[in-house]
């Protein structure tokens, strides 16, 4: 209908500096609508979390590009610890205005790391006590973390759990550990 008009390409526009903000209430209400919509289309809590995680992945992969272009001069991390620190620090700060509370390494499993956030932004307005033990909407954030890791060539699976607030369990594929060890020995 309007195709006769010449649309300016999005690539002709400069990339914004990424400093603008919107209201938290608006974001929270949008997120609530997303959870509500998704809830109506699935059968189980785990299915709901999977779908939230997939949507988060879409956001995370794009944020990774934005941050790498803007702040990292196109350089990406190559070591496990550094990419995790990048997530805990720069990535978290850009998205949520603060660093993640904690980063821990599991004692009994070399491949497992924990990123701990007492009160993730997406859970701020969701009543916790009733849902405890089941749905954690921070699965959305878990998807973002997974995107950053996979997008930086650290294949991993990330899930969100109710523990010390919310704990994001990061489990790397064993190939990632093998590579990290190789880089060390050089």
């Amino acid at each position: 209908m309007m195709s006769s008009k010449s649309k300016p390409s999005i690539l002709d526009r400069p990339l914004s500096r990424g400093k603008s903000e919107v209201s938290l209430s608006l974001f929270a209400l949008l997120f609530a609508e997303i959870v509500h919509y998704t809830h109506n289309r699935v059968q189980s809590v785990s299915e709901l979390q999977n779908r939230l995680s997939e949507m988060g992945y879409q956001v995370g992969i794009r944020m990774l590009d934005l941050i790498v272009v803007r702040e990292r001069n196109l350089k990406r991390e190559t070591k496990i610890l550094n990419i995790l620190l990048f997530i805990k620090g720069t990535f978290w700060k850009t998205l949520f205005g603060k660093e993640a509370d904690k980063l821990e390494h599991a004692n009994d499993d070399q491949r497992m790391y924990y990123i701990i956030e007492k009160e993730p932004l997406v859970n701020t307005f969701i009543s916790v006590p009733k849902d405890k033990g089941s749905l954690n909407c921070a699965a959305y954030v878990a998807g973002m973390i997974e995107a950053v890791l996979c997008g930086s060539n650290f294949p991993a699976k990330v899930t969100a759990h109710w523990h010390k607030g919310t704990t994001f369990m990061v489990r790397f594929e064993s190939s990632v550990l093998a590579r990290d060890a190789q880089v060390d020995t050089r």
Partner: protein
Amino acid sequence: MNRSVDPKKVNSELFTLTYGALVVQLLNDLESVEDVNKHLDRMGYNIGVRLVEDFIARSSADKCYDLRETADKLQAAFRMYLGISPSIANWAPAGDEFSLMIDTNPLTEFVELPDTCSNMRYSAILPGMVRGACEMVHLEVSSWFVQDQLRGDPVTELRVKFIKRLEDSVPPGED
């Protein structure tokens, strides 16, 4: 304790990309672009219904007695919630219709519509929000996009038309 007066903010790109992820999800789930438009509008309505309470509590806004006041309030709400200041323009001669002219729409920051989605109203959540919010303060309005930068228009123009004033519901057994 005083969180309700604290205008807490989040990174607008988190918001923009979250909205984008939602639109993509709707496109995957639903049959037609028309359905996607409808869903976005409905979600906007639900958001507007709640957001108007937040707006009143924060700005201690009073009732509007004419549509010009309503237009000013909507402008203020766009500033408060989306961080943009649309101008108010194109009043209908009867004074029952106006437009909000949006220069930069944060929802479409990273968006380009493919030809397969040419009839999609990507930002349909906005007119939905306007409708929901106005309904809660007893104004029935309709709202739609006249121009959209996503379709190559120079500006994004959101039209608002007053339909009627809504009354409190009468208690059962009276009239």
